[in-house]
C-alpha cells in the first residue's frame, strides 16, 4: 500500500498543531505506521505553518514533497496557494474561505492575490471550500476553526466517525470539548458541498 499524505497548512496561531494531533491519533488507531511532522518556534507567531501527516505500511521521511499530498487541509486561502504545489493532481483540497493578511500586505508592500480559489479550481478538480470561520463563530468560539476543518476532512476519510470523536475527546482540553464537538459535527455535515 502506498502512503497517504496529508498536509495541514495555515497561519501560526490558527491551531494547526491541535488538528495534526487529532489526525495523528486517528491514524494511530488504524494500526498503520504514522509520522507527523510539526512546526514549533518562530513561525508560530503568525507566520506560515505547515504540518505533514503520513500514514502507511512503513513511513520513512516525515516530510511530504511536491506533488505528493493526497489531501491538503488549508486553514487560510493564501496558505492554500503557497502550498498548492504539494498536491497531487487529484488531491482533495479543503480550503477554509478565510483571509488573513500577512504583514507585507498589511503594510501595502504587496497585494493579497485575487481569486485564489478560482485559480486553484482551474488547476485541480477536487476542491472543497468551507466557511469554517462562520461555522466556528456559530458554534461559539472562533478558535474552533481547526476542528470544523477536521470535521470536513473526517467525512471524506476512510475512518469511522466515532474514531474521530474519540480522538477529539482525548486531545481537546475538557473546558473546550463541548464547543469543539459541536464544531466537528458542523464540519462533518458541511462536507456534502
Amino acid at each position, binding site marked *: 500500500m502506498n502512503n497517504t499524505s496529508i498536509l495541514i497548512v495555515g*497561519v*501560526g*496561531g490558527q491551531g494547526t498543531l491541535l488538528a495534526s494531533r487529532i489526525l*495523528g*491519533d486517528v491514524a*494511530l488507531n488504524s494500526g498503520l*505506521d*504514522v*509520522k*507527523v*511532522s*510539526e*512546526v*514549533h*518556534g*518562530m*513561525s*508560530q*507567531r*503568525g*507566520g*506560515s505553518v505547515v504540518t505533514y501527516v503520513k500514514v502507511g505500511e512503513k*513511513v*520513512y*521521511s*516525515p*516530510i511530504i*514533497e*511536491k*506533488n505528493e499530498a493526497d489531501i491538503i487541509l488549508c486553514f487560510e486561502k*493564501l*496558505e492554500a*496557494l*503557497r502550498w*498548492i*504545489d504539494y*498536491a*497531487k*493532481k487529484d488531491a482533495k483540497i479543503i480550503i477554509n474561505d478565510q483571509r*488573513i*493578511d*500577512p*504583514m*507585507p*500586505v*498589511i*503594510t*501595502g508592500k*504587496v*497585494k*493579497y*492575490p485575487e481569486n485564489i480559489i478560482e485559480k*486553484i479550481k482551474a*488547476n*485541480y478538480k477536487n476542491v472543497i471550500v468551507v466557511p469554517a*470561520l462562520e461555522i466556528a*463563530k456559530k458554534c461559539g*468560539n*472562533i*478558535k474552533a476553526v481547526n476542528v470544523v476543518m477536521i470535521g470536513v476532512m473526517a467525512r471524506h476519510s476512510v475512518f469511522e466517525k466515532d474514531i474521530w470523536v474519540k480522538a477529539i475527546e482525548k486531545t481537546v482540553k475538557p473546558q473546550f470539548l463541548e464547543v469543539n464537538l459541536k464544531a466537528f459535527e458542523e464540519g462533518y455535515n458541511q462536507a456534502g458541498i
Partner: protein
Amino acid sequence: MKKLMLGNEAIARGVYEAGATVATAYPGTPSTEITENIAKYDEIYSEWAPNEKVALEVAIGASIGGARAATAMKHVGLNVAADPLFTASYTGVNGGLVIFVADDPGMHSSQNEQDTRIIARGAKVPVIEPSDSQECKDFTKEAFRISEEFDTPVIVRLSTRVSHSQGIVELEDRENYVLKPYVKNPAKYVMMPAMARRRHISVEERMAKLREFAEKSLLNRIEWGNKKIGVITSGVAYQYAREAFGDVSYLKLGIVYPLPENLIKEFASQVETLYIIEELEPFIENQCRKMGLKVTGKDKLPVIGEYSAGLIKEKLLGETPEKLNDIQDEAPARPPVLCAGCPHRATFYVLKKLKLTVSGDIGCYTLGALAPLESVDTTICMGASVGVAHGLEKARGKEQSKKTVAVIGESTFIHSGITGLIDMVYNNCSGTVIILDNSITAMTGHQHNPTTGYNIKGEPVKKVDLAKLCQAIGVERVKVCDPFDLKKFEQIVKEEVAADELSVIIAQRSCALLKHVRFGPVLTINQDKCIKCRMCMRLGCPAIVDRGDHVEINSTQCAGCDLCPRVCRFNAIEKAGGRDE
C-alpha cells in the same frame, strides 16, 4: 503499549525509562519539549536553569553525585555550555551523563546553522544520532549505558525534524537505577594541570575504546539491498535517503563520533557507487575521504539548509518534480509577527519614533526588526545586546549612547545579559538598557524563568527582582514602566537616553498569550472620524489592515489590547463591543 510521540517526548520517555533522576535545561527550539516532557514525570527532579552552562554544570554535579542526569539545549546552547563540556570530557562521569543537543538545519528558529558534531569532536565526546521517535527513546537508554561503561558524557544529536516529528514508540518500564555512591576522587574530579594531564591520557584511551565499540555496536547497522548503490547516512537524512533511493544498501550510523572505520571500509568494498548523505557539514564524508574512499557527497549536495527526499532525488538522481499548475510563485511571504496585543509592540513603536539605534537581542522581540517597526539594528546571540551597546559607545564615544538603547527580554537578561550590564557599570558606560519584562520566556513557547516566580512545574518559588538586581550591581538609574503607557514610557526613554549615567528601564507588561491576561472588547475604526493619517498602521498590529481607500480593524484578529486608540489623534478608534469567543 504503543504511543505516538514527538522525538523530544520520546527522549523524555527514554530518560525516564533509563532511571534518570535529575534533568536540567534552558529552553531553545527545537529542544524545549524534551525537558517540558521530563517535567511530567514526578520520579525525575527537573528544572529550568538560567542558561545552558549552568544546566550542564548541574547535570555534571548530579552525575558526580551518582545519579543518571540529563540536560537538553539547542545547538547554540552548546556554545554557552562548551566550557564545562570540554572539561567534563576529562573528568568523565559517575552516574550516566547525557547531553541532548538539537541542531536546526534550515534555521526554522535559529540565528545560525552550526553542526554540533564539530564541537563534540573538539571536546572528544561521543555523539549518538537517532533518526525517529522510537530510536530517540532506545538510543537515549543506550547513551546512558555508554556514558557509564566508557566514563564519558555522551551527546545525543537531534535535528528539528527528529525532535518535532511524531512517530510510534513502544513504551517499556522504568529501570530501577540505584544511585551510585559518591566517593571523593580529586584525581578524577579536580582538573588542575597535574591531574588534567593524566586525565587527558584517559580521554585518548577512551576514544580508542569507543572506536572499537563503534565497530560492533548495534546502533550502527547495515541494511543490504541492491549493491549498485551504497549510502552511508545518519539521523533524519537516513529517512530521506530511504525514500529517495528505495531498495539499495545502507550503512545507517547511530554513532557518528567516533566512526567505525572498518565497518565503513567493509561496506564500501561491497557497493559500486558510494554516497554519503548527511545534513550540514561533511563530517562523515571528510573522514571517509581521509580513509581513501571514493565518495559522492557535498560535491553534489549542499552544506546549507535542510535536506529532503526531493532534494536528494534532484541533486543525485537528476529527477525534478513535474509542474502541475501555473499558479506557483504568486504567494506573498508571511513572515512571523508580534502577536496582536504584544507588549513589545509599544516599546518598538516608541523606539522607532525617537529614531534610536537599537542593539537587539533574541526573543519574540527580535521581530521588532521587521517592517513596519524596523527598529532593531543588531542581533547576534543571547545577551549580546548589552555588550554590543557598550562597544558602540567605546568605539564612538559617549555621544553614541545618547541615541542608542539595548533591548533584552527578561529571560535573556538573566541568561547572559547581566554580565554585560556589570561590564557597563564597571567600565563607566552611560548607555541605556531596556529590559522587556513580559513575565515569561515567550519565544520558545512560554517557559518560566527565575523572574516569573514559578518553577518548571508551575509551583510558586522565590523570584529574582530585576530592579533590585540592577541596583545591587551599581546601576543608579532604574525605572519601571508599562510600555502601553505610551506618553510616560516615551518620556522615560528620552530622559534616560539623554542622561550622562548608565540607566536601566524595565518595560513591564505581560505577554498577551498568558492565561491571566484579559483584554477588553475588540476595537473598530469609526470611518467618519478617521482622516486616514495611518498613524495606527505604524504599530504593525496584524489586526489593523490597510484596504487602500480606508483602514480597518479585523475583528477576528484584534485582541482588544487598547493600544491603537492611544496613537490615534482623532479618537477614531472605538470599542466595538462583544468579542467572538
